[in-house]
C-alpha cells in the first residue's frame, strides 16, 4: 500500500462521502455547541453534544473541509454510537478516547489506533505520519472535548 493509499483508505473516502451525524440536531437540555476552525486551510466544524447525566447522549455536526476532517468527524460519531449504544457512552470514556486518539495521532506513526477501541476511526492511523494533516483529523475530536467541557 503506497503512502497515499494508507492515508486515504477506502473507509475514509466512504465516511467523507456518507457522513454520520451530519446535520445539527436540536439542542437538548444539557447541550453545548462548539465551533472549531483550522486557520491554515479554513476547515471548520460546528459540533453539538448532548449530555444526559454522565453519558454522551448525542453528537451531531456540520462543517466543511478535507476528506480527512470530514471522515474523522463521521468516524467519531460512529464510534460513539457503536460503543455507547442507546444509553450513550460514559463521558469519562469519551474523554479517554479523545486523549488516546490525540496521543496516537501525534506519535508520528509510532502508536497505531487499534480497531478494537477505535472501530472505523482506526483507519486514521496513517494520518499520524503526515504531521500537516494531524490537525485535520483532530478537528472534530477537539470540538467534542471542548463541548464536553462546556456541557
Amino acid at each position, binding site marked *: 500500500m503506497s503512502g497515499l493509499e494508507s492515508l486515504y483508505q477506502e473507509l475514509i473516502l466512504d465516511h467523507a462521502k456518507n457522513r454520520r451525524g451530519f446535520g445539527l440536531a436540536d439542542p437538548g437540555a444539557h447541550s453545548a455547541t462548539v465551533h472549531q476552525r483550522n486557520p491554515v486551510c479554513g476547515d471548520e466544524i460546528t459540533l453539538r453534544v448532548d449530555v444526559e447525566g454522565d453519558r454522551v447522549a448525542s453528537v451531531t455536526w456540520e462543517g466543511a473541509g478535507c476528506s480527512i476532517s470530514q471522515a474523522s468527524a463521521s468516524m467519531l460519531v460512529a464510534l460513539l454510537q457503536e460503543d455507547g449504544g442507546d444509553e450513550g457512552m460514559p463521558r469519562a470514556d469519551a474523554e479517554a478516547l479523545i486523549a488516546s486518539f490525540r496521543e496516537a495521532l501525534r506519535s508520528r506513526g509510532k502508536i497505531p489506533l487499534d480497531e478494537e477501541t477505535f472501530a472505523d476511526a482506526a483507519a486514521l492511523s496513517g494520518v499520524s505520519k503526515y504531521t500537516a*494533516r494531524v490537525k485535520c483529523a483532530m478537528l472534530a475530536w477537539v470540538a467534542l472535548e471542548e463541548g464536553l467541557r462546556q456541557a
Partner: protein
Amino acid sequence: MTLPFDVDAVRADFPILETEVDGHPLVYLDSGATSQKPRAVLDAERDFLERANAAVHRGAHTLAAEATELFEDARVTVAEFVGAEPEQLVWTSGATAGLNLVAGSLGYAGRLREGDEIVVTEAEHHANLIPWQELAARTGARLRHIPVLDDGTLDMHAAADLIGERTRVVAFTHVSNVLGIVNPVAKLVTLARGVGALTVLDACQSAPHLALDLPASGVDLAVFSGHKIYGPYGIGALWGRDEVLEALPPFTTGGSMITTVTLDKAEYLPPPQRFEAGTQPVSQAVALAAAVRWLGQHDLEAAHAHEAMLEKRMREGLRSIPGIRLLGDTDAADRVALQAFEVEGVHAHDVGQFLDSRGVAVRVGHHCAQPLHRRFGMTASVRASAAIHTTEAEVDTFLDAVSGVRGFFGVSA
C-alpha cells in the same frame, strides 16, 4: 556578463531541486509562497559570515569597515534592481514589515483622521489589508475596497468612483498572489494622483518575475520580500520617493537610527536609516544582493518569455481537465506563471496531498487572501506557481497529476 537563458543551467544552481519526494523528483511549484535559493546566494552569505562578519556602521576595526561596505554595496545593488537610488531603499524584515511600517508611520504622523478614506482592493494579501484595517480603526478613517470582477481583474469603473477627494491612501498589489494577474498600476496611480492620495504598491509577486522601475511606475512607496526573489528569509525592502520618506516619522526606534539621544528625547537620522532601528539583517542584505546579481546574470527577457510560456501551458492545461475551476482565468490582462484553482468535489487539502505523492509541491488554502476566496465562493484553493527554474516537463507532470485527482478520490467527472 549576460548568460543565454538555459533552464537546465539555471536548475543546476539550486541544490534543493535534486531532492526526491516519495521516490519522485521534486517539482517545486510553490515559489509564490517562498522561492528556493541558488548556490550563489547561499555562498555569498556564508562567505560573508566566515570572512567579514561584524557590526556595521560602528567602530573602526577592519572587519567592521568591510562589513559596512558590503552592507551598503548591497543596498546599492538592490536599489538598482528596482531602478532606485540607495537612499530610497529601506531594509525591512520583509514585505509585511514594510507595509506595517508605512501604515504605522502614517498613523503616528497623524496623517489620517475621521472622514478620510483608505482604498485597497478585494484581491489583497492580508499583509496589505489588515494593517490598513487597523489604521482605519485607530484613526476613524474608512477603509474601502475596489471590487474584483468575475474574471479576476479589478473593477476599474468602481475604482474611479471610489477614489475621491477623501482618499488619502491607495494601497494595491502589483500582482495578485492568487490570480497571477498584473494590476493596471499606471491607471491606479493616475486616479490616486488626481486626488492627491499616496500610493503604496505591494510588489511581492512582481519582483521575482517582472522588470521593475519603481520610480517610473509613479507609485510613492513599494515593498517586496527577499525570500520570494531567490534571496534569504528575514529581509525585504521598502522603497519610497525622497520627499515621501522624508515626511514619515520612524515606526520603530532604537539604535543606529538616531543622531542625539537624551534620557527624554531622541533626534532621528534622515531616511533610510531613520526606519532601520536596531541591528539590521546584514548577512541577509549581502545575500539578497547576491540574489539579484544572480538573477541579473541571465538574459531576463528570455527568462520572462520562458515564464510566459509556462503560464500559458499551465493555464491551458488546467482548463482542459474536467472539473477544474480556475480563479482569474482571463487573457485580458498581463499575468505571471501562478494559477489558483479548485477541483470540483475534492477539497484543496486533498488535492495538495495527492500532488505531493507525485512529488509536486503546490500550496493549498486561502493563501492569505480570505476575502478574495470568499468573493469567489470558496474557502480554499490549490495554487501552482512557477519560477525561473521551472521546466515545461514539470508543468506537464503537474498537469498529469491534477488529471488523476478526481479519479483517486472517486468523484465522477
